[in-house]
């Protein structure tokens, strides 16, 4: 994919956060969709927004896009306070790529994009449409009707449409759903390129490896905000540090070997010859464990710090939430 150049500089204060959300809530009748959510997203940050189905992710995005009015709380989007009067100004500075591409299937790719250049008031629309299509590697399909495109290609057209206005904040809702691995990698490269250009990206995704790979920080939402931070910080908050030890054969009395070793606070068997040790500091505990095992004549196969994925963090947070089990 190719780089997409900016239309113009926004003139916004670079020190202000791109998004600032303060105690935002949204109710639909008796149902609470989003409850007391507070977070900020810095300019140029790729911010992951994770949560199970019905967690309020889309409602949050629609609220920040000024499509629906919050029940309480406040927000600032690209420096503009979220009020009904500011809706047009906010929407001028953002772009949203919804999960469903939402294309006019009887119109060609270029006709779809031309319509949106006019809606955004983009100067030199033909050139911009060409750049957006180049950016998603679709220039050769410009004259095809959208109805004739595969789901993955429609997704790319929707992404091109979101890029037309050179938004300050780009909301991407599941941008790689339906894309093959090559196209997914291209979209990831595009997101990285946009971040390097200073575009703030609010990424809603179910692909946790995608969030881990792309996002500077992630928020986990389940009606209310469950956690927020860098993936590493969340791991550290949720999981104690641990070592995974594998030996060539089962250790006769593992409790006697591991108990009392420097830095080791607990241990569990994780198979016939595999052990998980809870440690205070892996750098201190690992050499001590290695020495103890060698001293007793055990064959040490591997010893490594246990890595928890973002998926572990997500499942830990969502599964412990009683709201999640009711959905």
């Amino acid at each position, binding site marked *: 994919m190719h780089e997409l150049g900016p239309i113009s500089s926004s003139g916004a204060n670079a020190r202000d956060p791109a998004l600032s959300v303060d105690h935002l809530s949204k109710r*639909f009748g008796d149902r609470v969709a989003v409850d007391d959510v507070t977070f900020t997203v810095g300019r140029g940050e790729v911010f992951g927004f994770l949560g199970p189905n019905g967690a309020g992710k889309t*409602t949050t995005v*629609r609220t920040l*896009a000024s*499509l*629906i*009015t919050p029940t309480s709380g406040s927000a600032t989007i690209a420096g503009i306070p979220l009020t009904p009067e500011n809706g*047009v*100004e906010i*929407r*001028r500075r*953002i*772009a*949203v790529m*919804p999960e*469903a*591409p*939402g*294309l*006019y*299937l*009887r*119109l060609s790719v270029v*006709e779809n994009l031309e*319509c*949106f250049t*006019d*809606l*955004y*008031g983009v100067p030199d629309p033909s050139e911009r449409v060409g750049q957006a299509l180049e950016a998603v590697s679709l220039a050769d399909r410009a004259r095809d009707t959208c109805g004739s495109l595969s789901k993955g290609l429609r997704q790319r057209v*929707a992404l091109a*449409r979101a890029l037309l*206005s050179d938004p300050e904040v780009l909301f991407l809702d599941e941008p790689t759903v339906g894309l093959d691995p090559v196209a997914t990698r291209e979209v990831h490269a595009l997101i990285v390129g946009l971040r390097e250009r200073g575009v703030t990206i609010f990424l809603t995704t179910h692909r946790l490896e995608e969030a881990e790979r792309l996002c500077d920080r992630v928020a986990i939402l389940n009606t209310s905000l469950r956690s927020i931070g860098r993936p590493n910080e969340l791991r550290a908050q949720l999981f104690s540090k641990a070592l995974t030890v594998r030996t060539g054969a089962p250790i006769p009395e593992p409790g006697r070997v591991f108990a009392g070793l420097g830095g080791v606070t607990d241990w569990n068997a994780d198979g016939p010859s595999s052990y998980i040790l809870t440690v205070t500091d892996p750098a201190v505990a690992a050499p001590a464990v290695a020495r103890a095992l060698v001293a007793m004549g055990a064959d040490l196969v591997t010893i490594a710090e246990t890595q928890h994925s973002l998926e572990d963090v997500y499942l830990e947070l969502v599964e412990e939430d009683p709201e999640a089990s009711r959905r």
Partner: protein
Amino acid sequence: MTMSRRRIWAIVRKEIREYRRNRSILVAMAILPAIFIIEPLVAVLGLTAAASSTLRHEHVLLYLLGIPTLVPPVLAATAVAGERQQGTLEPVLTTPIRREEFLIGKALAAFVPSVAVAYLVFALFLALVALFAAPGIASGLVQGSDLLAQVLFTPLLVTWSIWVGIAVSTRSSDVRVAQQLGIVASLPAVFVTALIALNVVPPTLGLGAGAAVVLILLDGVGWQITSRLFDRERLIANPG
């Protein structure tokens, strides 16, 4: 509040392109006027020359005002329900477009083809009568006041029917249902024009002027009601 012509025009151009490629809309736009002219055409072409003096006291042409009343809901019904059905409403509404720009764009897009179809069918009817009716029938049928009424009332009726169609469309998630409800909601206007065409209500200059004023007022009220019915949040948050 300043409205952007470019955004309005973007909606108009997109809509016209979609109409041209939507077979069901094209068929409906052809069938409805055909239904309206076939019956009077057969009746008029079957008249003998002796009937020409009787025709001078009737207003058969006003019957054709049913076309500008019934064609617009077919187009206007797609305005919101069509966008919701194909999932395109949310992307459009996340652009800087204002509600008023969106609705005016939709209304203009339906207005132009509706008025064009109404005038074309009317002209076709007159041409067929002039070519194939018995001598004297055409001159008996075509009266200056009826022609003037056709020219003046067509855009007023189209505008009213468009607001009815869009209003129904904002409350419906299915285009076909919206089209049918829009046509049903426009029937009272057809009924009134039929009463006048059939001389049940004798057409007079005063009646014409009064009807024009009422229609202008109704067009304004239609815009206000449709604008209030267009609730961005409800349309987005309740996709069904």
